[in-house]
């Protein structure tokens, strides 16, 4: 009796550990492209199934949108956000430092809502460095002239074409490339 109880609780712990360590990418069910490769789609560098939760953190919204749009947490994996938030005093050449309290709250929001389909052991600092971004913005998708348009300025300027980027909506129907 006590042995089987022990065995059962051991099994429960093992299952719990498995569920904790299981990559969330296994929850992916909205496409089959890339299945069978070791890391999944885009070599495992895929944005989250939902890039921005319906309920967002108010501090994230306010602080991150001071200088650029508040980039949706699901565009990068948790480790990327930890790195970004750990280096805000030199944030792409700019001092974007926060108080320790603000930093913690925003980091928690980003990490908790980071990409759930990222399986690669990579953690880029720039969204435009990711495999999914490069594929989705290659010369077939975005003609070179669009990037040269001063209204676009930089790949960091999502809302130049993704009109609803600030709401975390990057759907095809809301893309409008400037002329």
């Amino acid at each position, binding site marked *: 009796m006590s042995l089987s109880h022990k065995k059962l609780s051991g099994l429960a712990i093992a299952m719990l550990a498995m569920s904790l360590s299981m990559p969330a990418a296994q929850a992916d069910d909205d496409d089959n492209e890339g299945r069978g490769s070791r890391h999944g789609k885009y070599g495992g560098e895929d944005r989250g199934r939902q890039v921005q939760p319906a309920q967002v953190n108010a501090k994230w919204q306010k602080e991150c949108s001071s*200088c*650029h*749009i508040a980039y949706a947490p699901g565009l990068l994996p948790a480790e990327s956000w930890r790195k970004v938030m750990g280096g805000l*005093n030199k944030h*792409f*050449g*700019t*001092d*974007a*430092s*926060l*108080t320790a309290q603000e930093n913690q709250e925003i980091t928690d929001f980003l990490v908790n809502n980071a990409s759930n389909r990222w399986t690669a052991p990579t953690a880029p600092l720039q969204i435009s460095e990711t495999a999914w971004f490069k594929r989705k913005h290659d010369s077939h998708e975005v003609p070179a002239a669009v990037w040269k348009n001063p209204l676009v*300025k*930089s790949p*960091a*300027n999502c809302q130049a074409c993704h009109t609803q980027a600030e709401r975390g909506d990057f759907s095809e129907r809301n893309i409008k490339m400037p002329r």
Partner: protein
Amino acid sequence: MLQKLHTSGLALMIVAGFAAQPALAEAPNQILDSIQTAAKNTPGFKGFSAARGESFFKAKQANGLSCASCHTDNPAAPGKHEKTGKAIEPLAPSANAQRFADPAKVEKWFKRNCNDVLARVCTPQEQGDVLSYLLTIKN
């Protein structure tokens, strides 16, 4: 006695409630006063100068940047982030009541922007000169 305690407790709660309202935040002059308190500790401090603040605001530093790079030469007008192009609300309190109303926000942005433009923090003298200049601007 109990009644009294109750009433004063309520009064305290009301006061605390008001203090937490950003709408009743400090006026720019109060922020200037606290910068002055810090500046007074500097030897030879002779007060703030709006003219000196204006020169400082518009002066290009070693990296080619100035405060005006983003806030423009007219702080009552909207600006534009030098790198990202994002719109920046006017900086002069006469044009934007939210400016210099929250001491923590003022501290945060002086630290960030001075580090970006001058690669160092700004002295209380410089901060006070700039705020004095901004307060002379009429919308």
